[in-house]
Structure formats: structure tokens, C-alpha cells
């Protein structure tokens, strides 16, 4: 039975509501009375009518409900409160213009804070969905040349660290990589968490169906098995409860399903499938850095102590294996920090900016209320002479403030709902845990508290201007003039508002300046918007030999080139602008001359044409060389400088571990930017993909291995229009082969600036709000001041003052508020700009041009906001304004 149906008694929900609305003294009485009347009505009018009657009665109690109505004593105070609240509401409704501006202003401030706070709550504050997540740490490597820590470790190193540590109670090694999952129609590319067997135990997230990975699943030659995420279980298996034991096709081989994860499981890169590390075809060499560890701290241990312990063990490993571990260090950090990573800084900054905007909004509304109180002196004087005490006035102003604050809060939350959806849809990919972002009870609670505080704050502001002893005077004097002290406070508020706006706008200015500079950085690629890219992975099960891979690639190259509109086609192991696949390169026979973190790129003949990189010296690789006949390579400018300095690199031999005999440099090309937007282009060497395939052929390949590569297709026309043709060309060679990450090179360039774009655009929005509110504030105060001084203006003009001089007078008054505000704001901005830290790029926190522009913008805004009141002042008819007195 639902609450709306009628059985023997009144509707349950309504009855429960009633219990909340009626105080204890009367609760039983009211309940039994309504129940008895209800029964009579059921007999007389039928169940439906009786239920509707019951709800109406509960509604009646709700309408008469008073929050502090606990006893008889509470009535008088509460009645006064409700009277004041009603009065507040009425007087606000009577001044719709004022109310609209005040509520709208507060809604902007509160809404911005609600949106940002829900982002912070969802990403920074919410604990990870694991058992005792505070005890989980993330293990990584670091190298001073690579910007500190947070890079990948190798499996043998991690295993030695695990074996030697006593501060970890359990740990697992993992890597997330893409794999091809065959579905009924075609194949999709999904992220797969390849992990050593204890992972789910370390996280404390057992499968909800089936079993966990066991050490035997991770042994050599073990049958490939997988645990599905809830998501994949629903989408691919229709949430089949008997899914355990069925098989999925991953990279063209059958994998048996052994379990299903709980619904709220999340992990780095959002994997859809969990498989044993064994089936990655993992690079198990000590130099093969591509893995990380997750560990659970032993009771009493902390990440700092663990890092010290691990570093001790790692020093031993460095002595033992200097060629791969020299210069590296190892570290453990809380998993939560790793997951949130770079978002923390920008989110906290945005929280600060949003708080400033709210402060500006409050100052603005407080100012409006001050002006309003000034106009209401007469009403207040009457109230006071009729016996209203100061406490009564407090309650009156407070209730107005609360009505404004709550209305602003409600409107702000409504706006924040839309704003968050927009934010997540625009920047979800750059935000860690975007799925956890939303307005929940906590966020609403904080917003309610904020609204109440704001309401109280702005409500009490006018009291500073209302003094009982002065009120008496006002009654005698009439509505003339304002007290000097009051206007000084109002002026101070405008100065504060301008200063706060300058701080926000200057922050946005510095970020915009950095962004502009970042976008001016030459990425080294030509017309990136004309290059379509996608990635492919060729499973070893279907492409067992280097020859089959080379054949597939060659045929696909031909089909793509034959597609109308295509100008160039190139394949590469890893796309430009994304980083990854690095190694250390030495000058042949000279261990001292080396370059760390050099990008390895194995390419096909069309690659340089597709990317649009010019040859600086030497020659391109020849057809023969691309067939893998010789070991020639092309290097970029940076690598040439790092290895050979001013020497001529042409004809020199470089030593790359894993390539026997090294590579001979035949040409030098221009640099292409790497994955980190704020770092210079990395060194790189390019050699034929066939050479790499030949090398791969000499190494044993497991059946689980796959060959990953990316394609770049330069087109003369609209790149998106090319996508169906690209899919067709790939499908013609292998109908089950999915294309993943289909996007233009320009998209990649944009994505690399991800977090920065997010921070900048939100900062920009806040700066816009700050300017808007600042304008409204200056306008409000100036137009009030002009209205107050209408008589003075009239007299001045009657005595022969020109319109120009009156205009100058008003603008001058506005400047007296703006200039100190701008100066204070600039000082504040300079003092606080350092918090922008790493988000700045080639821009000093004290950048003169930015500050000068901000000052100019604020000056313009203030002139614009003053123009209308000033113009009005020049229209004052001396006779009218004199007569008005």
C-alpha cells in the first residue's frame, strides 16, 4: 500500500508529517481527533474524499506552524518574528526594483559558491570508495629531470620494494591500458586495469559477484580471466546474474569472466575490466618503467615513514642496478592525493575567487540596504517614537536581510544546478572524480548556512546608520540630508568592493595572459586542425608476426591515401604532443654524453608530411631505409643539441638500449612539443617502424601481447567529415578492429591545456561577475548621492555652473572612491598573486601590463557606472529641485 491509498487509517505520510508539525503537548490529542473525524468522513464521503480532507487538515497545521513554538511563552516572540518577517517580505515586494537587484546579486554570489563548493566536495573532500581509504598509498618513481615524482616504476623494482618493506600490510602492482573488447556488432576500445592478484584485497573492495583474482590467475600460462565493472556488466551482459563463467573477447582472445565489481568502484582512468598483470604481456625488465603500486599501510605507519623505508631499499637497488636506477628515487603518497592531483590547486583557487565574489555581492547589498535605510529614516523615526525598541529595529532589519539572503540562496542553488551540469560537461575529462560531483545534502546545508549568514550580515549593516537619538531629530527635520558618518561607511564599502573586484580581475588577467602565452608556444606541428588522428591496437592473437603487422599497416596506409581529400598518412608508435615512450640515448661509445627522457618514435614514410615538420639539415629517410634495410634515424634539434652541442650530428651514431648497433643520424628536424605544456620540447629520435618490427620479431612475444600504434591523416577538407571513411578503411582490413581516440591534432593540443583552461574560464566568469557587481555598486552609490545632492546641483547651476563642471564634479566624486579602491586592490592582488603559482606560464605574479590593464578596465567601469547619474545631475532643473524642499 502506498501512502496515497487508503486502508483502515489516515494516510501514513500525512500522519508522520503531522507529528512533526504539532508540538508534543497537543500531538496525541490532534492525532486522535483527526483520526476519529477521518473515520467519520470515510463512512460519509468515501475514502478518497476523506484522504483529501486529511491532507487539507495537515496543510492547515503546516500553515500555522511556528519553528520555536514549544510552549505558551514562545508565542509572543514568535508572533513578533513572523510579523517582522511578513513586514520584511511586504516592504521588499513594495520595492521590486531594489529587491530584484539585491536578490539577483546575492544569487550570483551564492550560486557561484554553491557550484564551486560542490566541485570541491565531490572531488577533494569525498573519501575514495575503498575500505579505510586513508591507509592507502600510491607508489611511484621520481627523477629530478622529470619534474619530481609521480612517474612509473618497473615491476622488478616494485617487487623488491614489496619484499623488503615492513610498513606495508599489503600491496599490488598495476597498469591501466586500453584493450579491444568485442561486442555483438563491432569492437570497442576500453581501459583495462591489469594488476597483480591482491589489488581488490588491498583496496578492500571484494567483487559483488563471483570471486577475486587469485595468485594462480597471475601465474605464467594461467588461463586469462577478468572481473567486470558494474557498468560493463550492465551494458554488455544486461546485468545477467549468471555471468560468471561466460567469456568475453578481449584483444581477439577469449577471457573467462570470474566476477563483477560493486557499482561504486572507481580507479585511475576509469577501467571497465580487471585482469591479471600476467596477461598484459608485461615488460618485466628492471628498466621497463610503466607500472605503479597501491599499498595499504601497516597499522601505525604513515606515508612519510614508508617513503623513507622504501628509499632505503631503493638505494640498495640503485647500487645493484645502477644503469637503470641511477638518479631515480621512489616515493609513497596518499592515494587520495594522487587521484586528485593537479585539481586541488585550481579548485582551491577557484573557491577563493568565488568567496571574493560572494563578499563583493554582500558588500553591494549591504550598501543598497544602507541607502534604503537612509530613505526610510522617517518610517523608522515613527516606529521609534511609537515605542519600538532597538531590539525591535534589529528584528525588522534582520528579517529583511534574511528574506533577501534566503531568496538569493534559493535562486543561487537553482542556477548552480545548471552551472554544475555545464561545468562537468565541459571539463569532466580534466576533473578527477567528476562523477562524484553534484549538489547533495552537505552542499545544500552549507549553502543554507551561507545564505543565513549573508542575510544576517547584510541585514545588520543599516543598523550602523540608525541611532535612536538621531531618529528623534529626523522626525522633526523631515527627510532632509544624510548623516556624514553614514555616507562615509557607504563610501568605504564602495572602496572595498572596487578593491575586491580588482583582486579577482587581476587573477583572471594573469591567468588569461599565461593562457595566451601558452597558446603562442610553437607546437612544431603545421595546421593541427587539418590532421585527424586515431589509435589502433593489433592483438598478437590476430597479428602474431611482425610481417602480419607490417602488411596490415602498409595496406591501411594505401587505402587511407586513396581516400579523397587525404594529403598525407603516417603511422607512429605514439602521437605527438602527448609524451610517453621515453628512453635514455647516448652518443655511441661515450657513456658520459647522454640525453634522458628522449622520445622514441618509430614511423612510416608519410609521418613527417602528416605532421608537417620541416627538415633542418641532412636528408629524409629513404624508401629502402623504411623497409628496414639499414639502421638510420632522424633526430630533432633538441636531441642534436643535447648530445652533440655545436658538433655536426649528421653521420654520428647514437646508442639506444635495445637497438643493437645503434642508429646513424642522417637528418635533423624541427622540434615538436611534448605532453607537458609548460616544458620545452623534449629531445626525440625517429626511426622506421619496420626497424622496430624487426627488433620485435627477434624477441619472444606472448599470445597476450598487442601492437599499439597511432595514425595521423592530413586532409585538405573538413577533418570530421573524413571519419566515416577512416572507419571504412580500417574495417576493410579488419572488420573487428576498433578505432579509438578519434580526434584532430588540434583537439590534442587543446586537451593538454585541460586544467588550465578550466581554471581560466571559471576565473574569467568570476571576474565578469566581480566587474558586474562592482559596476552595480558604484552606480547605486553615485545615483543615490546625485539624488541627495539634487538641490545643491540646482543651486550650482542657478548660480551659473556649466553642465560640464557639474559632470566633472560627479565624475570626480566617483574617482575619489574608485582610485583608492583600485590602489588597494592592486596591492592586494600583488600580495596574493603568488597563490596562482604553477598555473602561471612565463608571466610574473607582478606582471606590470596585466595590472595596468586591470586598473584601466576598472577606471572605465567606474566612469561607465557614473555616467548615467552624472548625466542626470546635469539635467537638474534648478527651480524644480529648490521647490522640492
Amino acid at each position, binding site marked *: 500500500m502506498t501512502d496515497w491509498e487508503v486502508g483502515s487509517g489516515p494516510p501514513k505520510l500525512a500522519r508522520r508529517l503531522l507529528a512533526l508539525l504539532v508540538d508534543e503537548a497537543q500531538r496525541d490529542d490532534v492525532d486522535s481527533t483527526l483520526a476519529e473525524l477521518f473515520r*467519520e468522513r470515510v463512512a460519509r464521503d468515501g475514502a478518497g474524499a476523506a484522504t483529501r*480532507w486529511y491532507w487539507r487538515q495537515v496543510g492547515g497545521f503546516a500553515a500555522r506552524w511556528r519553528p520555536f513554538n514549544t510552549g505558551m511563552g514562545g508565542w509572543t516572540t514568535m508572533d513578533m518574528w513572523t510579523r517582522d518577517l511578513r513586514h520584511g517580505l511586504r516592504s521588499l515586494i513594495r520595492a521590486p526594483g531594489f529587491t530584484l537587484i539585491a536578490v539577483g546579486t546575492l544569487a550570483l554570489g551564492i550560486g557561484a559558491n554553491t557550484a564551486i563548493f560542490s566541485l570541491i566536495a565531490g572531488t577533494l573532500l569525498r573519501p575514495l570508495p575503498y575500505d579505510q581509504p586513508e591507509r592507502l598509498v600510491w607508489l611511484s618513481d621520481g627523477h629530478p629531470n622529470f619534474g619530481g615524482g609521480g612517474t612509473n616504476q618497473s615491476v622488478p623494482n616494485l617487487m623488491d620494494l614489496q619484499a623488503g618493506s615492513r610498513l606495508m600490510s599489503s600491496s599490488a602492482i598495476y597498469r591501466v591500458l586500453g584493450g579491444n573488447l568485442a561486442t555483438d556488432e563491432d569492437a570497442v576500445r576500453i581501459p583495462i586495469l591489469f594488476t597483480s592478484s591482491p589489488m581488490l584485497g588491498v583496496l578492500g573492495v571484494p567483487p559483488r559477484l563471483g570471486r577475486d583474482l587469485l595468485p594462480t590467475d597471475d601465474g605464467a600460462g594461467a588461463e586469462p580471466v577478468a572481473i567486470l565493472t558494474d557498468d560493463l556488466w550492465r551494458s554488455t551482459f544486461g546485468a545477467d546474474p549468471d555471468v560468471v563463467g561466460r567469456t568475453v573477447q578481449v584483444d581477439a582472445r577469449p577471457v573467462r569472466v570470474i566476477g563483477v565489481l560493486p557499482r561504486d568502484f572507481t580507479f585511475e582512468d576509469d577501467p571497465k575490466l580487471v585482469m591479471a598483470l600476467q596477461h598484459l604481456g608485461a615488460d618485466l625488465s628492471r628498466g621497463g618503467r610503466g607500472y605503479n603500486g597501491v599499498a595499504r599501510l601497516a597499522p601505525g605507519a604513515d606515508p612519510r615513514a614508508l617513503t623513507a623505508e622504501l628509499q632505503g631499499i631503493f638505494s640498495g637497488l640503485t647500487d645493484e642496478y645502477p644503469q637503470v636506477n641511477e638518479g631515480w628515487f621512489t616515493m609513497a603518497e596518499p592515494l587520495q592525493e594522487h587521484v586528485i592531483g593537479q585539481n586541488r590547486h585550481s579548485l582551491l583557487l577557484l573557491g577563493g575567487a568565488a568567496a571574493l565574489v560572494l563578499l563583493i555581492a554582500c558588500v553591494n547589498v549591504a550598501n543598497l540596504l544602507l541607502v534604503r535605510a537612509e530613505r526610510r529614516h522617517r518610517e523608522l523615526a515613527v516606529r521609534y517614537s511609537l515605542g519600538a525598541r532597538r531590539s525591535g529595529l534589529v528584528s525588522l532589519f534582520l528579517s529583511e536581510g534574511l528574506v533577501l539572503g534566503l531568496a538569493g540562496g534559493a535562486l543561487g542553488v537553482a542556477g548552480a544546478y545548471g552551472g554544475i551540469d555545464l561545468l562537468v560537461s565541459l571539463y569532466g575529462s580534466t576533473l578527477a572524480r567528476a562523477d562524484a560531483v553534484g549538489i547533495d545534502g552537505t552542499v545544500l546545508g552549507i549553502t543554507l548556512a551561507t545564505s543565513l549568514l549573508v542575510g544576517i550580515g547584510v541585514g545588520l549593516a543599516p543598523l550602523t546608520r540608525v541611532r535612536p537619538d538621531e531618529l528623534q531629530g529626523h522626525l522633526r527635520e523631515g527627510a532632509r540630508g544624510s548623516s556624514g558618518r553614514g555616507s562615509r561607511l557607504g563610501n568605504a564599502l564602495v572602496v572595498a568592493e572596487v578593491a575586491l573586484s580588482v583582486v579577482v580581475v587581476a587573477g583572471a588577467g594573469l591567468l588569461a595572459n599565461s593562457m595566451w602565452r601558452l597558446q603562442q608556444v610553437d607546437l612544431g606541428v603545421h595546421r593541427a586542425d587539418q590532421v585527424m588522428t586515431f589509435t589502433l591496437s593489433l592483438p598478437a592473437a590476430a597479428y602474431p608476426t611482425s610481417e602480419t603487422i607490417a602488411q596490415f599497416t602498409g595496406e591501411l596506409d594505401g587505402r587511407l591515401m586513396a581516400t579523397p581529400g587525404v594529403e598525407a598518412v603516417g603511422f607512429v608508435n605514439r602521437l605527438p604532443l602527448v609524451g610517453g615512450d621515453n628512453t635514455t640515448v647516448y652518443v655511441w661509445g661515450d657513456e658520459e654524453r647522454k640525453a634522458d627522457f628522449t622520445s622514441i618514435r618509430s614511423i612510416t614514410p608519410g609521418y613527417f608530411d602528416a605532421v608537417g615538420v620541416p627538415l633542418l639539415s641532412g636528408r629524409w629517410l629513404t624508401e629502402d631505409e623504411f623497409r628496414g634495410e639499414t639502421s638510420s634515424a632522424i633526430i630533432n634539434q633538441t636531441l642534436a643539441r643535447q648530445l652533440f652541442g655545436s658538433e655536426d650530428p649528421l653521420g654520428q651514431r647514437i646508442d639506444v638500449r635495445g637497438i643493437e648497433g645503434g642508429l646513424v643520424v642522417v637528418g635533423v628536424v624541427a622540434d615538436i612539443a611534448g605532453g607537458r605544456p609548460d616544458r620545452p620540447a623534449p629531445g626525440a629520435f625517429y626511426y622506421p617502424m619496420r626497424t622496430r618490427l624487426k627488433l620485435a620479431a627477434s624477441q619472444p612475444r606472448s599470445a597476450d601481447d598487442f601492437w599499439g600504434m597511432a595514425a595521423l591523416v592530413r586532409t585538405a577538407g573538413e577533418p570530421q567529415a573524413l571519419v566515416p571513411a577512416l572507419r571504412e578503411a580500417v574495417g576493410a582490413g579488419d572488420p573487428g578492429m576498433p578505432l579509438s581516440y578519434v580526434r584532430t591534432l588540434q583537439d590534442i593540443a587543446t586537451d593538454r591545456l585541460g586544467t588550465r583552461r578550466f581554471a581560466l574560464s571559471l576565473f574569467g566568469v568570476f571576474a565578469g561577475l566581480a566587474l558586474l557587481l562592482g559596476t552595480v555598486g558604484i552606480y547605486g552609490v553615485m545615483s543615490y548621492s546625485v539624488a541627495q545632492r539634487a538641490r545643491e546641483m540646482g543651486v550650482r547651476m542657478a548660480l551659473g555652473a556649466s553642465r560640464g563642471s557639474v559632470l566633472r564634479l560627479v565624475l570626480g566624486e566617483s574617482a575619489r572612491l574608485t582610485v583608492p579602491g583600485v590602489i588597494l586592490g592592486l596591492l592586494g592582488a600583488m600580495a596574493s598573486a603568488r597563490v596562482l603559482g604553477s598555473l602561471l606560464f612565463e608571466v610574473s605574479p607582478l606582471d606590470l601590463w596585466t595590472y595596468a590593464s586591470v586598473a584601466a578596465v576598472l577606471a572605465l567601469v567606474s566612469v561607465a557606472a557614473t555616467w548615467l547619474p552624472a548625466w542626470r545631475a546635469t539635467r537638474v532643473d534648478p527651480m524644480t529641485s529648490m521647490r522640492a524642499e
Partner: protein
Amino acid sequence: MAPTVLGQFEHQVLLAILRLGSEAYSVEIVSELERSTGKEVATSAVFVSLRRMKAKDLLLDRMVEPGEEGGHSRRYFRLTEEALDALRASRQSFLKLWDGVEAALDEPRPDTP
């Protein structure tokens, strides 16, 4: 002391209790009010009114425990002397006001359809 001035609804509630005999409980009062006014009555208004009048010493109440047949305990209300005074005064002032104007109501007003 001058008798308490009664609000219209208070007036109606007191009269309803009188019509029901010397004392009455909430269900009877609500039903009686609906019968005499011909309109639905908000139970909440009756409870607020009863509580206020009790606070103003216009009503006395006593709890009656349920009998053999079960059910809930009931709170019975009874009018005090002050309430009777107030009703008398109220009736008196209304009668004074009505004096000599009844005839005017018998004439159909021109704008009444």
C-alpha cells in the same frame, strides 16, 4: 474587570461548546462547527483557538481516559465564568449594533442580482 473581547472564530467555538451541553471534546466541537456554519472547518484553527482561550482563562479542560471499548483519551473543554461574561457582553454589543437596522436588510439592494 471588563470582559474579554472575543474574535469571531472564538465566539463560534464557545457557542459550539455551549450547544453541545456543558462540556465537549475536539471531535464534537469540529463536527458541531461544521454543522452550524455549513462549511469545512480547519482542525488546526480549532486547536489554536482552544489553546488560546485556555491561556486566557476562558476554558477549563479535563482528560477523560478511554473506557472499556478502548480508543484514545479525550480532552473535554468547559466554559469558565469569564467566557460566559465575554459571550454575554459580545451578544449585548451586537444586539445594540443591530438595533433598528434589521429592516434595512429586508430591502433588496439594487446591485444584488
